[in-house]
């Protein structure tokens, strides 16, 4: 079909999701650059593009072409989800929302010039910069482990190939073998995540290797949903899981990846698989931008702006914001507050009060789901909880199955909310 002005216009009008094709982007439109295409960044980019109707030029910088969610990756380890179902592309954000998707690494921020430097050598100018880089691991957090050891002892705490590697190692364990997890200290991404992982690994081992054992080495005295997990482990996997907390040396652990050993307070343990989840910090670009204080980037709760630079906003795991857990749900929630505030600042659109919410579902065994969550508001000091809830021990099977099915619905909705 030959294109003329009329067919182009009717084509635009026909596509209900066509909101801001680059060809109609206003000249001199304000520029928002988003670094990181996960739950925070992809959501913020989509909402700013969608709600500005082309009045704001949005660039999303994300190195991977296919994003594998960390949330629900434990279900892959348990055989409940396949890996393809965790992968999401950026084509809809580019084609339907007019977002300039750049697959590259952001390696530096010039806050005076307001530019982001990319690994390719390019620079991208911004009026507002949104950083949503997730986590990186702290050097030396677990003596003997660094990223060069992540093939022998995977962290699997960023979705994708590490998750596949860990599952392959679990499936290859010898009969009656031993799986160890070195759990992280607070604060870290997804507080119930390590314990859901243990549940899902236990489920897989119960199916294929029922005499195998799981050892958790934990620097924390207590952990998220502890009573729920411990009740579930007893019910589904009795005798399989042992946890060593700080009282018995769980905070004094080193590893030897070439020997596949852990040294727990002077006692050496030989294992077949070792999942090391090290202590965490904000993704490196937040540190490179000079907006961190310690490990994380402090933000103002009302709009998620950096306390050190009002032209930069920080979302999700990387932010020090107050009471919200570091989760995909939290990042998605923060992104919408941020998008509304950024649009208000750049286009004079209406800005509404910040409201946040979070729910973290965890799967203990197939159809045995539990949840914890809360609502939050912005105060001068921080994002503050206004009330929450948690599943109860002793719930019946129908309630637990319903809770799991809620998480299935949530996964479909939030990934649609992120990627369009």
């Amino acid at each position, binding site marked *: 079909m030959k294109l003329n002005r009329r067919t182009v216009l009717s084509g635009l009008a026909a596509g209900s999701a066509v909101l801001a094709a680059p060809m109609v982007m206003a000249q001199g439109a304000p520029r928002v650059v988003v670094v990181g295409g996960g739950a925070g960044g992809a959501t913020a980019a989509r909402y700013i593009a969608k709600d500005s109707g082309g009045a704001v030029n949005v660039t999303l910088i994300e190195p991977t072409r296919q994003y594998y969610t960390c949330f629900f990756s434990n279900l892959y380890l348990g055989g409940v989800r396949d890996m393809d179902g965790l992968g999401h592309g950026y084509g809809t954000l580019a084609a339907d929302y007019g977002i300039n998707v750049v697959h590259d690494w952001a390696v530096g921020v010039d806050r005076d010039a307001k530019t982001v430097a990319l690994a390719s050598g390019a620079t991208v100018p911004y009026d507002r910069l949104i950083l949503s880089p997730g986590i990186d691991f702290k050097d030396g957090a677990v003596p003997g482990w660094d990223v060069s050891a992540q093939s022998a002892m995977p962290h699997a705490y960023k979705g994708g190939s590490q998750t596949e590697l860990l599952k392959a190692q679990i499936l290859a364990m010898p009969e009656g073998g031993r799986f160890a997890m070195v759990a992280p200290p607070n604060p870290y991404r997804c507080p119930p995540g390590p314990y859901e992982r243990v549940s899902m690994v236990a489920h897989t081992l119960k199916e294929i290797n029922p005499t195998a054992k799981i050892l958790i080495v934990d620097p924390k005295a207590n952990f998220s949903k502890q009573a729920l997990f411990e009740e579930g482990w007893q019910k589904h996997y009795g005798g399989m899981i042992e946890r060593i907390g700080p009282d018995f040396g769980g905070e004094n652990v080193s590893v030897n990846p070439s020997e596949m050993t852990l040294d727990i307070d002077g006692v050496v343990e030989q294992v077949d698989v070792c999942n090391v989840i090290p202590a965490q910090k904000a993704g490196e670009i937040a540190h490179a931008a000079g907006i961190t204080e310690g490990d994380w980037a402090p933000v103002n709760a009302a709009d998620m702006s950096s306390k050190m630079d009002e032209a930069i906003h920080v979302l999700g795991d990387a932010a020090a914001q107050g009471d919200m857990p570091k989760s995909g749900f939290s990042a998605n929630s923060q992104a*919408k507050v941020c998008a509304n505030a950024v649009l208000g600042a750049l286009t004079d659109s209406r800005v509404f009060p910040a*409201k946040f*919410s979070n729910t973290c579902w965890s799967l203990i065994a197939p159809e045995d789901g539990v949840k914890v969550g809360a*609502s939050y508001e912005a105060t001068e000091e921080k994002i503050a909880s206004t009330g929450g*809830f948690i599943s109860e021990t002793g719930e019946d099977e129908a309630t637990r199955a319903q809770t799991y099915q809620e998480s299935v619905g949530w996964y479909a*909705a*939030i990934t649609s*909310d992120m990627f369009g």
Partner: protein
Amino acid sequence: MRGGVFTALCSGAVTSAQIVLADQSLVHPEIAEIMAIEADADYGAYLASECTACHSPNPQGAIPQIHMLPESYIVGALVDYRIGERQHQVMETIAKRLGEEEIAALAKYFSEVE
């Protein structure tokens, strides 16, 4: 009486809008007050972004679709969660911090968006 209204609503035999409009004596006074508020569409669109983290227009699993439901049904459901007439941990937490103007704005938004 409220429980009776809700049972009828959930049965699917008639729509909530038909019930609410047909017999005003069945309507909780709070619902009538909220239905009378002139809804702020922009605010509704903003507030709705909290809902769409879980409620998809193409739902899966156990989270229901709320897009294109009658306005009166959404108001009734949120009021029921707010006063504890209807139980769900997530929805009660969400609804208890919603003001009347916010419920009106949300109901207007979801009744019209596809």
